[in-house]
């Protein structure tokens, strides 16, 4: 059987001292290689002293190195050398690459690909949410506040805000009454009205809340605005936004790891704060904020009927126009939430509400930031 194995090979020897290829005749032995150089010298290398650094792919020259840190090397370009090496050396040569196992390598690579896909999916759907949830609870309020300020300054630079003092006073009064009713509140809330006709409101981490002019104009009473604000306050207190940003950033890091671009993650992370508008809340998060918001309204003794009528107005607008208001598109399943809120308001008896901003002429106040939204009829 051994006769069939070719033991004589030719290659080149590099001494690690000069960049000169020295032709070499190689003889495969049981325990090692016998290398005869062109100048007549004979080298004897044992298999276990050698390591293979090249020749793992078809058509690639095999490179065996010996010694540290500047190794001598033997180069063999003839195909079939590694197979013969394994046949002759057996266990002693087991640490060299075996071309006969390349199909196995292909299968292992495919399995690794499958594993990577599964691991990525597991990371995305389970590990990242879990880690982000756990981390969001531990982020110091001061950090949230910084992040929120940066995000708000990006989304609504001072020039785009409505600076009407009466609007500001009314909003402050509502916020004052709401935040007084939050037990152990670590946040200082800052509400800004953005001069934008879209109907939208959003919370940034650390107590920053943006109300778009369109939403203010659509609110038929101070109680309606208070309902929206209570909801956004809940997002802040529950750290929903911080959690969403953390998830977003981690998902970006994962993506960067998958595509082999670790530095792309950096810009992705920075961009995350700006993507605040497009962050989607899950149904659960929304329900939580609804329930919490309702409880907050009760604690502040503000009529919860305002929230209901706000949602009803939004739903009506949604059915009228093919494109729903922005506030709805980022807050899914409006009808379901409305039904649930109605049930909650009905079931729980409350102390009679105290009037909110009785001295304010709301119908004119809500329009003070600008004209009526173009192309839209104001609700009565």
């Amino acid at each position: 059987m051994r006769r069939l194995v070719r033991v004589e090979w030719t290659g080149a020897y590099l001494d690690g001292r000069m960049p000169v290829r020295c032709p070499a005749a190689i003889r495969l032995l049981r325990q090692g290689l016998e290398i005869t150089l062109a100048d007549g010298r004979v080298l004897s290398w044992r298999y276990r002293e050698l390591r293979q650094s090249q020749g793992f792919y078809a058509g690639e020259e095999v490179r065996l190195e010996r010694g540290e840190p500047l190794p001598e090397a033997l180069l063999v370009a003839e195909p079939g050398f590694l197979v013969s090496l394994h046949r002759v050396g057996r266990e002693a040569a087991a640490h060299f690459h075996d071309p006969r196992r390349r199909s196995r390598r292909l299968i292992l690579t495919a399995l690794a690909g499958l594993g990577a896909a599964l691991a990525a999916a597991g990371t995305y759907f389970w590990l990242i949410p879990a880690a982000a949830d756990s981390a969001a609870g531990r982020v110091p309020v001061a950090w949230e506040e910084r992040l929120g300020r940066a995000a708000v300054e990006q989304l609504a630079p001072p020039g785009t805000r409505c600076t009407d003092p009466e609007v500001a006073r009314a909003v402050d009064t509502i916020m004052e009454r709401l935040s007084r009713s939050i037990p152990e509140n670590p946040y200082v809330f800052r509400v800004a009205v953005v001069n934008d006709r879209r109907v939208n409101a959003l919370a940034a981490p650390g107590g920053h809340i943006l109300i778009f002019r369109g939403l203010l104009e659509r609110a038929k009473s101070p109680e309606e605005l208070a309902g929206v604000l209570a909801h956004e306050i809940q997002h802040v207190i529950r750290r929903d936004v911080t959690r969403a940003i953390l998830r977003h950033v981690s998902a970006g890091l994962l993506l960067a790891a998958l595509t082999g671009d670790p530095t792309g993650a950096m810009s992705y992370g920075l961009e995350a704060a700006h993507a605040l508008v497009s962050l989607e809340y899950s149904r659960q998060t929304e329900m939580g904020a609804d329930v919490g918001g309702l409880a907050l309204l009760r604690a502040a003794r503000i009529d919860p009927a305002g929230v209901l009528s706000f949602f009803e107005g939004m739903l009506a607008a949604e059915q009228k126009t093919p494109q729903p208001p922005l506030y709805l598109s980022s807050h899914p399943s409006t009808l379901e939430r409305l039904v649930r809120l109605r049930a909650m308001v009905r079931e729980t008896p409350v102390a009679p509400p105290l009037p909110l901003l009785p001295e304010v002429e709301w119908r004119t106040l809500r329009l003070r930031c600008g004209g009526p939204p173009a192309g839209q009829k104001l609700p009565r």
Partner: protein
Amino acid sequence: MSRGITCPRCGLVQLAGPTCKSCGAALGGPARPVGRPGVQPAAIPAEGGKAPRPPSGAPPEIRRLSFHGAGGSLFGIHVVNTFLTIVTLGVYYFWGKVRVRRYLFGQTEFEGDRFAFHGTGKELSLGTLKAVGIFLLPILLLGNLPGILALPWWVDILAGILAYLLFLTFLPMAMVGARRYRLSRTSWRGIRFGFRGELTTFLKLFWMGGVLSALTFGLYYPFFETRQQAFFVENSRFGTQGFDFDGNGRELFWSFLLTTLLLPFTFGLSWIWYLARKRRYFWEHTCVAEARFRFPITGGKLLGLYLVNLLLLLFTLGLAWPWVVIRNARFACRHLVLEGPLGLEAITQQAGEASATGEGLAGILDTDLGLGV
């Protein structure tokens, strides 16, 4: 090997000379000519700093790189790396990086021999760890702590300036460190490349260049870039053989100016044209021994490369990354030419130490220098 003689003591095959290059034993050969071997000093015509030409009549020796890598193989490596990186929570990343580099170097051939990368994952991970500890943490702390601790505004500004200065120190350190590490871990025919540039020299060059560029509203920039290139090339060596650079920023200045002025009208695309011009110029002024490089690429070729790469990445959501890497390597190998005699017989091994901290720092700061191609 017919020209070589064998040392009776250590057995080293070498050019005939009075003593052995390795062990110093007497060989009895003729004394080597002073200066560069292989070329008679008197035979070199004075050509005003141009590349020395071979003696009249003989055609110039032309050497090229060839690249054998395949996107499929690299993709396989990448898949396994990704899997192991996820499973080890990121630790394997550095070992994966080494595997990719080993593959790429091993697939690059020059004069029938392939390059080899000798770095290890352990080195890289420790280097990165050190870089994070020594360099990144202070910058992050300086940049963020004052705001978090609600310190007075002037402390915030002072810390910000300090962090920026630190960054401006670490960036050149990373550039030099990464260059030193990568070259010292690269070999061809068993001989290591190396880098002997001093950090202090480069720090001075970098700061001066930065300040001058700012003061001249960027007009100094091509000079700055050329001086950096000169520093990196002139301090690089292959074994005992150094590289030379004779470029001058003046010759890039007008194309730089024109490119910059055209930027708004070409949607930034003129920059690619300048990039091609710069690389061509830098390589054409790089010499090793008696040979000179040429890198005849045009802005159009470079634009084509980038455009297809971009489309590949976009339409595969980044999965085509291995093919993009292979395309870049092929592009470089297809165009890079070395012209003239090399005198390899006169080169011997000269290895130096280098830590991977600079490499780690470069990885963090994203100054991926490559090897200049």
